[in-house]
């Protein structure tokens, strides 16, 4: 393999990885605060992707333009789910929570299957085949746009948690649930907000990823798993860890696709997971497991 092809593929992988990172960031935020593992994460992303496809084919709206409204819709969906269903499960055993979300995931996959059919769909944006050249480097325009959007959304989320009162309140809930109750925070509402934010992240990531990949209803579970791999690799509950894990997994997948075969790329993501669980179970940026 020539070195410049290698470099091109690596850069493409890193850019895709940033979008993966944003997707995983949603999962990480939800887990870090609500302590619930969203087993329907990838499925929620496919909802966003199909929404973007529908808007594109009906009204020719670019997925990147529709990113905000779709993310907002996913926020509402997540908020309602947490407020209406998941909050009641916070004190239930862990496996009960998993199964609740797995049930939601199954329902989403099959409703999408019934509505949109099993075939792969995508959007043909006018700039689908554009590329930027930088010396020997040739990068797809779609990947540049998608990755830039991912960085902007992630930065906005960091800023929200760091600098706003609401973000601080949510972090307080994450650090000390009882303490947050004592000082009078409406924890259930904050949990619903957090779940909504996590879903908004994955909704935005879905719009970006649609520029790079096709979507079928069946990819939902695969993305859920990928988000888990990324979050565990980066460190559960760590926001920078999610982005770093995303880049690492994106890069690995791209190189594996180049050196072996694209259809086997997910095996390498799982290999990373096994290595991380073996040698650093708390993840690269995670705090020690308790």
């Amino acid at each position, binding site marked *: 393999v020539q070195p410049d092809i290698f470099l091109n593929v690596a850069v493409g992988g890193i850019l895709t990885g940033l979008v993966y990172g944003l997707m995983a960031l949603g999962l990480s935020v939800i887990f870090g605060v609500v302590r619930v593992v969203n087993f329907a994460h990838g499925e929620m992303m496919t909802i966003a992707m199909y929404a973007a496809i529908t808007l594109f084919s009906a009204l020719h709206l670019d997925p990147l333009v529709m990113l905000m409204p779709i993310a907002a819709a996913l926020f509402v969906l997540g908020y309602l789910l947490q407020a209406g*269903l998941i909050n009641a499960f916070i004190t239930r055993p862990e496996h009960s929570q998993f199964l609740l979300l797995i049930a939601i995931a199954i329902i989403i*996959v099959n409703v999408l299957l*019934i509505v949109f059919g099993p075939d792969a769909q995508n959007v043909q944006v006018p700039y689908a085949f554009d590329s930027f050249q930088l010396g020997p480097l040739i990068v797809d325009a779609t990947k540049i746009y998608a990755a830039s959007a991912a960085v902007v959304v992630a930065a906005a989320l960091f800023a929200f948690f760091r600098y706003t009162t609401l973000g601080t309140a949510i972090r307080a809930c994450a650090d000390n649930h009882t303490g947050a109750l004592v000082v009078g925070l409406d924890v259930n509402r904050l949990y619903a907000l957090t779940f909504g934010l996590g879903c908004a992240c994955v909704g935005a990531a879905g719009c970006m990823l649609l520029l790079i990949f096709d979507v079928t209803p069946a990819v939902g579970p695969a993305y859920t798993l990928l988000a888990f791999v990324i979050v565990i690799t980066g460190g559960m509950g760590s926001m920078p860890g999610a982005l770093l894990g995303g880049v690492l997994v994106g890069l690995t997948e791209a190189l594996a696709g180049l050196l072996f075969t694209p259809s*086997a790329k997910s095996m390498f993501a*799982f290999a990373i997971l096994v290595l991380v669980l073996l040698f650093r179970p708390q993840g690269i940026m995670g705090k020690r*497991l308790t």
Partner: protein
Amino acid sequence: MIARLTAGVPRRALALLGGLLATFMLLPIFAGDYLLTVLILILYFAYLGQAWNIMMGFAGQLSLGHALYAGLGAYTAAALYVHFGIGPWIGLLAAIPIAALAGAFVGFLAFRFRVAGVYFAILTIAVAEFARVGFDHLSWTRGSAGLFLPVAQYSHNDLWHMRGHPVMFYYILLAATALAFIACRVLLKSRIGYFWLAIREDEEAARSAGIDTFHYKMIAVIVSASMTSFAGVIYAFYYNNLFPEQVFNISHSILIILAPMVGGVGTLFGPILGAFVLEFVAEALRTVLEGFGIDLPGTNQLFFGIVLLLVVIAVPEGVWPWLARRLGLAEGKT
């Protein structure tokens, strides 16, 4: 031995169990091909649910990747048959150790490094997915094109090669389900079983009490994986075709956990009742939808999702414990 196993079980429950077994023995006489197919599915998932229950229901380790062990069992026996003409019962001698080894690998990775809860569940999915993609590229088993067993019209049932009429598979599965039921009861009433329950209820406490939790959790995974692989072998020889996309798929894993979830995790009768309820209601639903001329892929799965959702919300302990209390069949405290 028998007295110890049945101690504390109400006489009515034993009579009911005997009656149920007798009914199942006689059913193929009356059942047509369609009903037989449904019954085979019920027994398949009842047996698998029993196997899965050992890990989750007894030892408290949530596996969401049991398709791995079924798939390994199916592929091992089928590949040996296709390539070397080795029959399924001999193939089982390879299938069980391979599945047990895979279980030991998952268990070792997880329990050695104290990977628990959600991490463990995700690890089980990841290993199963790894196997799915791996088998998609394994040319020895024909990769994603699928492995097919030679099919021919058989004049008689050849039990040794598992070639023949579905009724034969029905009785194999019935025997397997009955044996699994008894085996689980034996395990549950043994030293190992009590240690499992201790680990499930409070692992820290179990460890402080001197139980080697690593050791007993490993036993749970290995026993469960071995039992699961047998169902895989039957799957291969019953359907005569294997695709990694199907047998290793996460939805296969989910189907395996549905029956015990609906019936009652950790109960012996739960997986059987759960399989029964799910399949019968699913078939009824299909018939009704077909009556309206609706035939959409995904409706069955959608239904399973809705049932799981309702069960988790309304009867989190499962249907059987609830029903057993109502019918006065619950085990007495002795």
